[in-house]
């Protein structure tokens, strides 16, 4: 009934009611809030900012590492402040506790698999592919040439690499090069994922990195770094 009454035009803001200064102000505020909510993820992605959300405290993850990569909205789980989600959050935390770096499942001793199916196995000069990857979570200022550094430490690097692989599998803004048993992807992440360090990066004042180079043997990660 109410619905039909509303359709008939008997709303409080009927067209015969002139908009006062307060009315215009309210509309302007609503428009600005909407504009901010729309632009925030794009600005964060584009410039690597971390503008607060309108519901910031509800979005924050109690188990998040101190530094995380800038996440796209689809990567950031929507968390409500209601008690109903608390049990789900607790379950997620319990299952995360069994995961290496909060992401990788150990399928055999020292062999880890990511949600997208990438495998991290023993090998490389460092003894394990994960240890090789750790080189790309810190700058090596004296290393000749460029040295890509992921944002967010190991956790951030692993999430970004998995995201890059997901995009590559969907052929989303990526190139694929196959050479013998190696597959080399270059994936445009369309957001900041790290920066360029090393001697050359330092000379260029550490430019922002938005792409990921991913070198695989089948699904084994040989190396991955931002560029």
């Amino acid at each position: 009934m109410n619905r039909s009454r509303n359709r008939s035009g008997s709303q409080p803001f009927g067209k015969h009611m002139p908009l006062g200064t307060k009315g215009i102000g309210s509309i302007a505020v609503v428009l600005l809030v909407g504009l901010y909510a729309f632009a925030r993820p794009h600005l964060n992605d584009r410039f690597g900012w971390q503008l607060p959300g309108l519901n910031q405290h509800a979005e924050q993850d109690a188990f998040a590492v101190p530094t995380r990569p800038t996440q796209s909205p689809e990567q950031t789980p929507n968390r409500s402040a209601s008690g109903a989600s608390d049990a789900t959050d607790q379950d997620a935390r319990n299952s995360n506790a069994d995961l290496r770096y909060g992401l990788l499942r150990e399928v055999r001793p020292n062999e880890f698999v990511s949600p997208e199916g990438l495998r991290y196995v023993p090998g490389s000069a460092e003894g394990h592919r994960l240890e090789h990857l750790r080189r790309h979570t810190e700058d090596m200022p004296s290393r000749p040439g460029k040295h890509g550094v992921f944002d967010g430490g190991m956790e951030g690097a692993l999430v970004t690499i998995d995201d890059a692989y997901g995009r590559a599998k969907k052929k989303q803004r990526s190139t694929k090069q196959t050479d013998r048993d190696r597959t080399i992807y270059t994936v445009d992440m369309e957001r900041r994922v790290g920066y360029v360090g090393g001697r050359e990066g330092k000379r260029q004042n550490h430019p922002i990195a938005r792409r990921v180079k991913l070198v695989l043997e089948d699904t084994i990660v040989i190396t991955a770094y931002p560029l």
Partner: protein
Amino acid sequence: MNQDHDQNSAQPPLNPGPIRSVAICPICDGGLCGVRICTGDDPTEPLPDRGFVMCDECEAVWMGPDVQSEHHYVDAQHTECPVCHGGLWAASRWADRDDVQRLGWSDAIDAGLDGESDV
């Protein structure tokens, strides 16, 4: 800029990589094509004194200092030295200035890519 996490609180220093390199890797664009020298996997045998070039990122291998020549890759899980076929990391090491001179590859070295320990 990046903080580390508690799982890495007592991590060893990062592997510095090659000492003497011939190029930035033409395959992955990010690695250093460093000279490695085979030290052999049998201590009772004389040193082979043979070298190879390897990218420290994608692990492409060249048997000479020309990285435009034929290459292959180290197997991801069964890494072996391409000279003596012993374990790659035990049976070879990054070559220093003297090693490179002994190999006769000094002219191929890009001095701008020299690692810290040999500058």
